[in-house]
């Protein structure tokens, strides 16, 4: 509840007060990145290291861009379409590669992002290296003649609108994830993560479960990518690169692999941490990576494990 008030009321108010409008863009990015990271987190939860989320974000982004610019499909419709497209794509890709474990799976997913970039460069529909630019802002969303979301181009504060959109989706996404992890499917995912052989011996269809989890993961990547495109109103083959894929993974690591809200916290910390270190100029990368290494060494279970630890102590 505090969280809801925080993101929907407090943050806009603070930004209003300080006049730092650019923070809307930052926070919107954080919200979207955390949605994609949540997907990566789910693949970790079934015991797979996923460094390929950038590929799905790119695919989702392009799908949305192409549909909006060339087929004049409503942007709102392209959000779920991008997600579904990525989910189907990931099922096809996942069927063979999810048999791999550990570092082998990680390597393949790493390559996926590069493949996605090269595909975008080669296909005529994605317009090669020039990308797709001047994508219109999201139009009106109405159901049975009732306007639910007004046309973004008529709004005077588009940044705020995008902020609300991203944060709302983030809340829905994490609520869904939380429910998933605490339902039977979450328990089964955990059993898969810990021992696939035993899981199959108690009758879990491990192939189906793995692919379902990977599809959900990619769905979230596609959704995140499609909204990004709407915000920047452009997409290039380099919009999501290997570095982004790795960042998605880092967000998850820093936040905590064992906690649903890990990716959210991780994204906030990494995104703002990187920006804060901007002051240090050429040492930025050095300090950033040193801190990350330190974090991995001291809190291998993520930042959220720290908080829980303290909380337990107080209870005793």
């Amino acid at each position, binding site marked *: 509840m505090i969280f809801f008030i925080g993101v929907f009321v407090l943050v806009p108010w603070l930004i209003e007060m300080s006049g730092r409008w650019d923070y809307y863009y930052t926070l919107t990015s954080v919200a979207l990145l955390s949605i994609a990271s949540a997907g990566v987190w789910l693949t970790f939860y079934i015991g797979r290291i996923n460094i390929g989320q950038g590929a799905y974000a790119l695919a989702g982004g392009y799908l949305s861009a192409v549909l909006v610019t060339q087929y004049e499909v409503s942007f709102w419709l392209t959000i779920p379409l991008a997600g579904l497209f990525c989910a189907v794509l990931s099922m096809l890709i996942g069927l063979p590669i999810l048999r791999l474990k550990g570092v082998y799976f990680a390597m393949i997913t790493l390559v996926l992002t590069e493949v996605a970039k090269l595909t975008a460069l080669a296909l005529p529909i994605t317009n090669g290296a020039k990308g797709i630019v001047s994508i219109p802002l999201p139009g009106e969303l109405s159901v049975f003649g009732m306007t639910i979301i007004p046309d973004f181009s008529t709004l005077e504060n588009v940044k705020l609108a995008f902020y609300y959109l991203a944060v709302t989706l983030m809340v829905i996404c994490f609520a869904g994830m939380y429910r998933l992890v605490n339902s039977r499917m979450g328990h089964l995912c955990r059993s898969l993560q810990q*021992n696939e052989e035993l899981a199959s011996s108690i009758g*879990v269809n491990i192939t189906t479960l793995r692919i379902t989890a990977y599809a959900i993961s990619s769905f979230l990547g596609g959704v995140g990518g499609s909204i990004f495109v709407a915000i920047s109103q452009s997409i290039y083959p380099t919009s999501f690169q290997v570095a982004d894929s790795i960042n998605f993974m880092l967000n998850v690591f820093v936040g905590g692999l064992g906690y649903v809200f890990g990716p959210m916290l991780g994204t906030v910390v990494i995104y703002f941490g990187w920006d804060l270190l901007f002051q240090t100029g050429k040492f930025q990368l050095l300090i950033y990576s040193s801190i990350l290494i330190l974090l991995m060494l001291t809190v291998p279970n993520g930042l959220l494990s720290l908080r829980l630890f303290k909380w337990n102590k107080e209870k005793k």
Partner: protein
Amino acid sequence: MSALLEVKSVTKKFGGLTANKDISFTVQEKEILSVIGPNGAGKSTLFKMISSFLRTTSGEVLFKGERISNLAPHIVARRGVVRTFQETTIFKSMTVRENVVIAHHLRSKTNLLGFYVGSRRAHTDETEFRRSADEILEFLNLSEISGELASTLPQGHLRALGIAIGLATDPKILLLDEPFAGMNHDETMRTVELVSGVRDRGVTVLLVEHDMPAVMKISDRIVVLNFGEKIAEGTPQQIQQNEQVIEAYLGSEDDSIGL
């Protein structure tokens, strides 16, 4: 009485090596049948083929007259043929109770979506699973440690937990992989009682084992393998007097087969 499980001339070759050659035997309902043999006799290979963790080269395994070999392991488990593993194979970072609750997955009549939206049936399922898990833990004397993390358990408890996970799936036949390996005499005797108890619940037991005294004590019938072939089959008394079996176990070391 018709056979519950039937192994029909099963053969397994790994390249040029024949691990199992033309093995046939049957398991009757509610009996305890042990497969024994010296190291490298092909016991584990046979075990994995029955539970479909390995494919057969030729021959087939029938359960209630239907073929179960060369299927996916989870499908075999759904039919009621469930295996246990040696001690290290459990869900380590779950508690003992969680291990057993999750193993009830097979009994669930609700699909995952039902659990996701929290339908009423999913709710009754969960309640039932927890009740049943507690009953199984009680039965295997694990109630006191049900809240412990599985990774912290001593070996004896791990073995019992493995059996508990197997029982939770409501099997018709439980395949035990060396349930007495690495145990001292007392632990072995306790586990022997557990396994007899499992049979008394109406579950047929097929076990693969090294420990001769335990096998002699517990089994209704014994199948002996040597160099991948079946050399004998019979009651413990028959096996103890079988010349070939004694020879297979180096002949001279009589006490190793409990004589």
